[in-house]
């Protein structure tokens, strides 16, 4: 009986391992935007925040830290504690009246 040779473990390839799942998730995101638009909800602050965060992925000079970059884009960037606990977290910072996204960054208490 021929002696069997042990197989070496397959070398991990992130594209082989993860491409189909990433493709599926991207299609889900696209379908979500379509659904929101069809139902007149494209202007919701969370949809706008997601659209803005997507831009982090496609910049040609984006470093290999996109997950952190997207998380920061979807984060409340103010620093001071709030006077009272509000509604549960919703996944994107609530825009304050009259503030641009730029002024939300690094706000200091007066």
């Amino acid at each position: 009986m021929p002696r069997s040779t042990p197989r070496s473990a397959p070398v991990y390839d992130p594209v082989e391992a993860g491409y189909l799942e990433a493709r599926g998730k991207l299609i889900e995101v696209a379908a979500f935007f379509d659904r929101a638009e069809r139902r007149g909800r494209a202007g919701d602050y969370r949809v706008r925040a997601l659209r803005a965060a997507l831009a982090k992925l496609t910049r040609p000079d984006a470093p290999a830290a996109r997950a952190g970059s997207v998380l920061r884009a979807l984060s409340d960037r103010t620093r001071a504690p709030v006077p009272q606990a509000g509604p549960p977290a919703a996944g994107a910072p609530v825009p304050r009246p009259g503030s641009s996204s730029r002024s939300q960054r690094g706000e200091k208490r007066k």
Partner: protein
Amino acid sequence: MRYIEPHAHMVSRVSDDYERLALAGCRAVCEPAFWAGFDRGSAASFRDYFRQLTEYEPRRAARHGLRHYCWLCLNPKEAEDLALAREVLALLPEYLDHPNVLGIGEIGLNKNSRHELAVFEEHLALAERRGDLVLVHTPHLEDKLKGTRLILDAVRNFPRLAPERVLIDHVEEHTVRLVLDRGHWAGLTLYPVSKCTPARAADILEACGPARLWANSACDWGPSDPLAPPKLGLELHARGQSREEVDRVLFRNPKNFLEQSGKFAVEE
């Protein structure tokens, strides 16, 4: 594959889950005090909950050969009521010396409010006085980055709390280095949708190295997977990590942190 589950809310899980944990190689489960899904109405209800964590859950776990430990506190979601919070804080010392209680947790912030911060600091003061380990919850979603910064700044105000005796849980890509750079331990929580997947947790481990990191499921009454930590083990194996490297993340790291309590013991 042996592992320790350092953060699971077993009060909200059926006994079948204890069996699954045991079958998957879990040696010990650690359960922090958390929000019941509704605001408790009195300090007396916290007494009942603490009894459930210190007496009932260890018996339920033991039927499946698992050791059960817990952490006690008033959780951040119930910190807006300062009067109730202080009543609960006052009765905590009655339970903290129990042999199954590892320390104070999971304290932290929820919506980053002033009252939450005040109650968090009062818990830290108690931990500092007693020399307890601390387990910290960081807020969800868009509140996590801000809350992590507030938490780190608050902990700094208690210099007798050694950084390596504080674990800050639920870190993600944008907060993990903030925590590790301060000398604390960081927890990777494998929870669907709102926290990390095994793949992302493996990415973070590759980027930061395994020192002072643990992984947990934080399984609770929401859609969550009590077997998430061994799934991280499978992901790490698939990426070519050795059995020893996987064992370090899933068993040795939590063991090393938790043994600092002087109470945690698990068979090798």
